[in-house]
């Protein structure tokens, strides 16, 4: 009997691949979802509720070096080669991918951001709305033009020191600076019944992995919904080592996978969706030279980068600090910087995610001078009255940032390791200096004092966001300068689609996941429409 040819194979089950899988199944297509990792069990494989001291010995015996059972314990190591200014690249092989370890920050890109894209905000907005309903996004309606409000469940308020930062930002606006200070928006239902998941109970362990599955992940929402259609076949612990191409190279015919036991299998399909992450998708394409007539695969790499400034607000001394758990650390953000009036010193914009509170499992301020009871009292006081400001700046797209293949180093399956090249440009440093000065000013305007600050940005003290990479297979209308068309379809291979952040043609300061989900949903519907028209 001839082996079944699936309608679509999706590679990667993270935010893009998971949603694409659901949307394709919903449209009546038979889908195979290939994921290199296994299914993780919340509360068992990771559980921030546990007591650090009680679990310490078990964790050490299991080879972990940190006290909490975090989903990030399972992130890959030695899976890429970094070149330049300390690039980092997070990769979590598990059903749900990095949706398991994201913070849940869910921000729409705005019309100003889409002005740099070949598709407009109005084109993506309906997909944002659908995504928000499925994800269960809680937030306040802030009325910001370039970070539009969405379909929100009730928002979650800020902590006291964050409100002091808000007062500082209000005074900054009084000095005619374009700025906003708003509560964060997260894919964490604050109210029951809206999505088929537990309501958030505010334990504060979002990024460690939500042990009650309240936080949206593709493993807990769209993939189970896709399973219910009866049209999804899961291939877990299966790594794609080769895209099967037609002899003329014009069509993708499937993938070859290697299972955990070493066995190999070819999965045939009419259309292929790659959603392995910005770095891994580029790696797969570059390894076989697929879809790269433009030479742009791996180029236009960008992420967010940052540094931290901490302020102290004596006004909040004496507040009730007995339970600051909440929604993890960040409850607020500085937004709206340079949206309209561009900086003359650097290109782009930034936001600053802000947090506060006493979190015993990860003290924000870990040192005070001296020893004994006075030192303990000082440390407790500082943690109680502090606010942390963490920059999230858009990294300038330039020839200094890209992905290629290491000519020598290979993984366990013999595939070349990707190299991530990161060399900060002068514009990046100038932006970071602006953030430092602005954060220090906001703290002082809010009535606080600066507790710690880098003072000056250097290539050494900037930290790249390991989970926010985008841009290695960018979308565009010109085959010579882009990799996929406006539907996310390869210019070169007509039945090859890309469903992750690598298609972003430009990147604002905002967190990528919601846009990644919305674009993947849109791409899947375009693909399904082609299937209905018999174009696959």
């Amino acid at each position, binding site marked *: 009997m001839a082996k079944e040819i699936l309608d679509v194979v999706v590679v990667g089950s993270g935010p893009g691949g998971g949603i694409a899988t659901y949307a394709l199944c919903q449209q009546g297509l038979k889908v195979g979802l290939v994921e290199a990792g296994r299914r993780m069990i919340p509360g068992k494989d990771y559980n921030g509720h546990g007591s650090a001291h009680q679990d310490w010995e078990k964790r050490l015996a299991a080879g972990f070096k940190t006290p909490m059972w975090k989903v990030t314990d399972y992130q890959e190591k030695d899976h890429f080669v970094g070149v330049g200014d300390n690039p980092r690249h997070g990769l979590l092989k598990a059903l749900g991918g990095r949706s398991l370890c994201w913070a849940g920050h869910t921000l729409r890109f705005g019309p100003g951001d889409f002005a740099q894209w070949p598709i407009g905000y109005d084109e993506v907005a309906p997909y944002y709305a659908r995504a928000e309903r499925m994800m269960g996004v809680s937030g306040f309606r802030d009325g910001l033009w370039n970070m539009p409000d969405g379909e929100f469940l009730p928002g979650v308020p800020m902590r006291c020191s964050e409100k002091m930062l808000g007062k500082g930002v209000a005074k900054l606006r009084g000095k005619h600076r374009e700025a906003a200070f708003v509560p964060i928006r997260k894919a964490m239902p604050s109210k029951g019944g809206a999505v088929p998941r537990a309501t958030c109970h*505010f334990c504060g362990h979002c990024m460690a992995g939500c042990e009650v599955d309240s936080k949206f992940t593709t493993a807990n929402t769209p993939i189970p919904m896709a399973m219910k259609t009866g049209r999804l076949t899961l291939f877990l612990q299966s790594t794609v080592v080769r895209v099967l191409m037609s002899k003329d190279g014009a069509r993708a015919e499937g993938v070859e996978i290697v299972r955990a036991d070493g066995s190999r299998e070819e999965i045939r399909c009419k259309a292929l969706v790659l959603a392995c992450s910005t770095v891994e998708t580029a790696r797969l394409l570059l390894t076989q030279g697929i879809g790269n007539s433009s030479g742009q695969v791996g180029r236009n790499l960008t992420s967010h980068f940052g540094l931290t400034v901490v302020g102290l607000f004596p006004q909040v001394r004496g507040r009730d600090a007995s339970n600051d*758990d909440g929604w993890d650390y960040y409850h607020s953000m500085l937004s709206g910087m340079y949206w309209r009036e561009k900086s003359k010193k650097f290109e782009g914009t930034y936001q600053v995610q802000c947090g506060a509170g*006493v979190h015993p*499992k990860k003290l924000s301020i870990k040192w005070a001078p*001296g020893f004994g009871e006075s030192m*303990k009292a000082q440390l407790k006081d500082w943690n109680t009255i502090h606010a942390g400001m963490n920059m999230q700046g858009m990294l300038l797209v330039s020839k200094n940032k890209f992905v290629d293949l290491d000519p020598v180093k290979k993984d366990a399956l013999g595939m070349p390791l990707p190299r991530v090249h990161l060399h900060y440009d002068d514009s990046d440093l100038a932006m970071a200096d602006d953030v430092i000065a602005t954060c220090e000013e906001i703290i002082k305007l809010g009535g606080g004092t600066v507790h710690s600050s880098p003072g000056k940005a250097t290539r050494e003290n900037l930290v790249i966001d390991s989970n926010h990479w985008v841009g290695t297979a960018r979308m565009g209308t010109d085959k010579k300068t882009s990799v996929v068309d406006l539907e996310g379809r390869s210019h070169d291979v007509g039945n090859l689609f890309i469903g992750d952040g690598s298609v972003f043609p430009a990147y604002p300061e905002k967190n990528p996941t919601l846009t990644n989900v919305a674009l993947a949903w849109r791409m899947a519907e375009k693909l399904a429409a082609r299937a209905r028209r018999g174009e696959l």
Partner: protein
Amino acid sequence: MLDRREFVSLGALLAAVDYVPRALTAAEFGAAEEFVELIVPGSKGARVMRYIDMGLAHGVGEAGAWKRGVGAWLSGKVPMGELAAKELAPGTELERFFGVAKRAAIEAYALSEEGQRDWLGYRGGVHLTAFPGCTEEHG
């Protein structure tokens, strides 16, 4: 083969020992516990050195630095105020050890139930139906 009386005695002995250090010797462990208690009072009750020693045995921190530091402490005790004054520019083995021990002890104490409850006044880690945020007006 142990008879019942020997078995009960062994159980009592094990209960009394409570924890057998893995990275440090018993003498080093005891001295380190004394040293750490001076830096972070309450550490002993929170079993901070047990936590640190377990970590050292698995490569969390450098056991050699603790052994050298404890050795320096035992060979000539220095007032804590003098060590603290040199914390940012340590010159001697013991001055360096002060910083190492302090960082590790603060982390372990903050992670302990005693540290969370008695020091930080933490009452979190519970199910909330809503997070109130800041409910007070400040300056």
